[in-house]
C-alpha cells in the first residue's frame, strides 16, 4: 500500500476540509438529510474527483493506493462537517472487503467504479440483532445452477437503499462466504429504516431466492469481513474525533460570546471546567484515532488493541462531547435549528454502528491479555 507523506496527507485533508467548508455547510447538511438518498450527488462527484472515494483502491484499479492514515485524516474532516455520504459504505467497507477477499474478477468489476464514485457498494453483515459477529448473520446461501441464491435478511445495511451492489456475508454449505448482489436483483426487497441520525441511511434487506455471485476469496471470508470492519472502525474513529473537535470549538466560541450576568458564560467555572474536560476528551479521541490508523497501516502487533481502543474511546468521547455541548449551550441547543443535536445524533449512531463500547472494551482487554 502506497502511503502519502505526512505533508501530502495534510494537504489532502485540508483540501477535503476546504471542499466541505464550501459545499457541506450546516445548511447543506440539513437539505441533504431530508433527501431519500441522504447524499448530494454533485458533492459526491467532487469528492470523487478529489480522489477521496478512491483513496483505498489500489492504483491498478484507478485509486490512490493510500491507506488508513490518509483515510483517518479525511474522515476527521468529514466528521467535523457532518458529511452525509456513502463514503463509509462504499469507499471504505466495500473497497476494503474486495481488496481483502482478493477475487481479481470482482475487483476488476467493482473497484474502478467505487474509486471514481460512479458505483456505490455496501456490505450486508448482520441481521436484526445488529451484532456484527459471525453469529449475528442471518442470510444463507445455496447453490443454484451455475450460481447461488440467497435467503434470509440483513439489517442495519448502511446506504442499503441506494447502493448499486451489496456484498453479503452468508452461510452456505461450505461455511461463511461472500456474495455480490445487484440492487435490481429479483427477490431482493429493500426497506429503508428510519434512523435517529438523519444524516445516516440504513436499510433492511430481505432475500428470497436472490441470485448472487460468489466471491472467490483467497482466504477465510470472515478475515475479509474483519479487514473491512477494522478499516471501518478507523474511519469511524476519525470521524468521531473530527466531530468532537468541531463541537468543542463551536461550544467554546459560544461560551466566549454569550453574555449572561454581564459577562461571557465561559468566564464561569462551571462552563470553563466542562470545556477543559471536553478538551481532554477530544484530544484523546484524536490521539486514539490516529494511533489506530498508524497501527493498522503498519499492521503492527498492537493493531488489534489500538483499533479496539479507538473504537470505544472515540465513540465515548464523541458522545460525551456532544451531550455536554448541549448542556453548555443551554436553551438554544434545545432547538431543532441549532446544529448541536445533529452532532449528538451522529455520535449516538456511531456508538452503536459496529457494536458498542462495552464490546470493544472487552476486545481491547483481550488484546492486552494476549500482549501481556
Amino acid at each position, binding site marked *: 500500500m502506497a502511503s502519502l507523506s505526512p505533508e501530502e496527507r495534510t494537504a489532502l485533508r485540508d483540501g477535503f476540509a476546504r471542499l466541505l467548508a464550501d459545499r457541506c455547510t450546516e445548511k447543506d447538511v440539513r437539505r441533504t438529510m431530508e433527501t431519500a438518498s441522504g447524499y448530494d450527488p454533485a458533492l459526491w462527484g467532487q469528492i470523487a474527483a478529489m480522489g477521496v472515494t478512491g483513496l483505498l483502491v489500489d492504483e491498478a484499479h484507478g485509486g490512490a493506493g493510500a491507506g488508513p492514515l490518509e483515510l483517518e485524516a479525511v474522515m476527521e474532516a468529514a466528521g467535523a462537517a457532518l458529511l452525509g455520504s456513502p463514503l463509509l459504505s462504499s469507499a471504505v467497507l466495500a473497497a476494503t472487503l474486495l481488496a481483502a477477499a482478493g477475487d481479481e474478477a470482482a475487483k476488476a468489476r467493482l473497484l474502478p467504479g467505487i474509486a471514481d464514485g460512479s458505483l456505490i457498494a455496501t456490505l450486508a453483515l448482520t441481521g436484526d440483532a445488529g451484532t456484527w459477529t459471525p453469529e449475528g448473520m442471518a442470510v444463507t446461501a445455496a447453490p443454484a445452477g451455475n450460481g447461488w441464491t440467497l435467503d434470509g435478511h440483513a439489517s*442495519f445495511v448502511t446506504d442499503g437503499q441506494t447502493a448499486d451492489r451489496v456484498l453479503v456475508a452468508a452461510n452456505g454449505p461450505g461455511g461463511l462466504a461472500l456474495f455480490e448482489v445487484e440492487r435490481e436483483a429479483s427477490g431482493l426487497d429493500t426497506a429503508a429504516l428510519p434512523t435517529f441520525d438523519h444524516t445516516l441511511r440504513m436499510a433492511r434487506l430481505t432475500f428470497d431466492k436472490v441470485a448472487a455471485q460468489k466471491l472467490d476469496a483467497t482466504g477465510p471470508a470472515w478475515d475479509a469481513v474483519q479487514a473491512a470492519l477494522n478499516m471501518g472502525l478507523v474511519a469511524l474513529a476519525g470521524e468521531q474525533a473530527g466531530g468532537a473537535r468541531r463541537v468543542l470549538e463551536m461550544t467554546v466560541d459560544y461560551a466566549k460570546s454569550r453574555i449572561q450576568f454581564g459577562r461571557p458564560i465561559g468566564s464561569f467555572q462551571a462552563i470553563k471546567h466542562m470545556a477543559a474536560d471536553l478538551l481532554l476528551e477530544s484530544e484523546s479521541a484524536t490521539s486514539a484515532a490516529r494511533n489506530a490508523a498508524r497501527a493498522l497501516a503498519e499492521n503492527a502487533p498492537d493493531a488489534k488493541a489500538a483499533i479496539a481502543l479507538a473504537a470505544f474511546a472515540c465513540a465515548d468521547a464523541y458522545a460525551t462531547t456532544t451531550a455536554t455541548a448541549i448542556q453548555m449551550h*443551554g436553551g438554544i441547543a434545545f432547538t431543532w435549528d441549532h446544529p448541536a443535536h445533529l452532532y449528538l445524533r451522529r455520535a449516538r449512531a456511531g456508538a452503536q454502528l459496529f457494536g*458498542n463500547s462495552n464490546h470493544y472494551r472487552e476486545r481491547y482487554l483481550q488484546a492486552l491479555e494476549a500482549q501481556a
Partner: protein
Amino acid sequence: MTDNQLRDEVRAWLADNWNPEERAGFLAKVVEARWAAPRWPVEWFGRGLDDTQARIIEREFAAVGAPGTAQDRTNLWANTVLAKGTEALKHQLVGRLLRNEVGMCLLYSEPGAGSDLAGIRTRADRSGDGWVVNGQKVWTSSAATADYGMLIARTDWDVPKHRGISFFFLPMKQPGVEVRPLRQITNEAHFNEVFITDAAVPPDNLLGREGEGWSVLQTALAYERSVMGEAARGPRSGAKEAGGAAPMVALAREAGVLADPLIRQDLARVTALRQLNALNTARAKADLGQGTSSSLMSLGKLAMSRILHEEARLRTAMLGAGSLLEGPDHPRAEDANFLSLNAYFTSIGGGTDQIQRNIIGERVLGLPKEPEVDRDVAFREVRGG
C-alpha cells in the same frame, strides 16, 4: 364547622354534582360552591379554611376523581392575580381563571436572558395610562391560544437589573403580538417564540408596582418550578411514565439483556437513583410538614435531571443497535432516543443544572455568592449578548 361536618358536606355535594361522564360545567359548579380555593377568603370564592380542612376537601375530591379543588395551591395564574393584581384585574379574571376560561402563557425568558432572567431587554414604556411593549420572548407554551401572557418587561433602564422590571398581564390577542412555533430538538413544537411590537398593556394589568416585577415574579416562579418538576415526561411511545423499577427491568427482559452482568449493575444503579430521589422527596415533605421549599425542589430537580439522562442512556445501552432507529415501527428506539433528547428539558429548562447547583450551594448550604459584575450598575451599562 368540625372536620366531620365538612367531610359530610363535601361528600354530599360531590354525590349530588359529580358525574365522571358529564364533566362540562362541573368546574363552574365547584367554583360556585366555594370548593375551588377553600383556603381563600370568602370574598374571593373561598371559605377561609385552614390547611387541614382544605386537605379534607382535597381528599374527598381525589377519592371520587373529581377535579377543580386545591386551586389555592396549584393555580399559578389565579394565585398570582389574587396576590398581586389590581382590584379591577382581580374582578375581571380570578373567577374566570378558577373556571379555566382564560388561556394563559408565560412571557419570561428571552433569547438573551436564559439563566440570567433578570437580564431581560423587552421594554415596556409608558403610553397614556398604560404601557406599550416591544421585545422578544421565547420558550412560551400555549402562546397561540392564550388570552393573556404573564410578562416581565423592563420599565426602568437606569437602575440595576432587578430593580427596573415590572410584571404585566399582556393581552395576547392583539396585532402587536406574533406567535411563532419553536421546533425543539425532539422535532416537536411545544413552545413558541413571541415577537412583541408596540403591543398595548392596559393600566389595570400591572401586578405589584412598577419596578417591583422581580418580586412578583419570585412568587410566580415557585409555582412554575413545581410544574416543571412534575412535567418530566415519560416515553413518547405512550407507555406509562417510566416510574419505578419495574418498567426498566421489564425493558431489560424484553430486550433479552437481563442476564448481562453489566446491564444488571447499570439497572440497579439507575433504578436506585430514582428510588433515592423519591425517598428524599418523601423525607423532605415529612420534615417540612405541609410546606414546600424551593431549595429542596432545586435538589430534586437536579436529581431528576440526572435520573432522566441516566435512564435514557441505560435504555439505549439495552437496545444496542436497535437504538439506531426511530419512528412508530421502532417504539423502544423511539423512546430511548426521545428521552435522551428530552432529558435536556429538565437539565436546561427552568434553570440549568448549573444554576440549580448555585441555588443549592447558596440557599441551602449558605455558601457565598460570586462577585456580580452587573450588580449596582444601571442596566443600560450592562454588557449584553
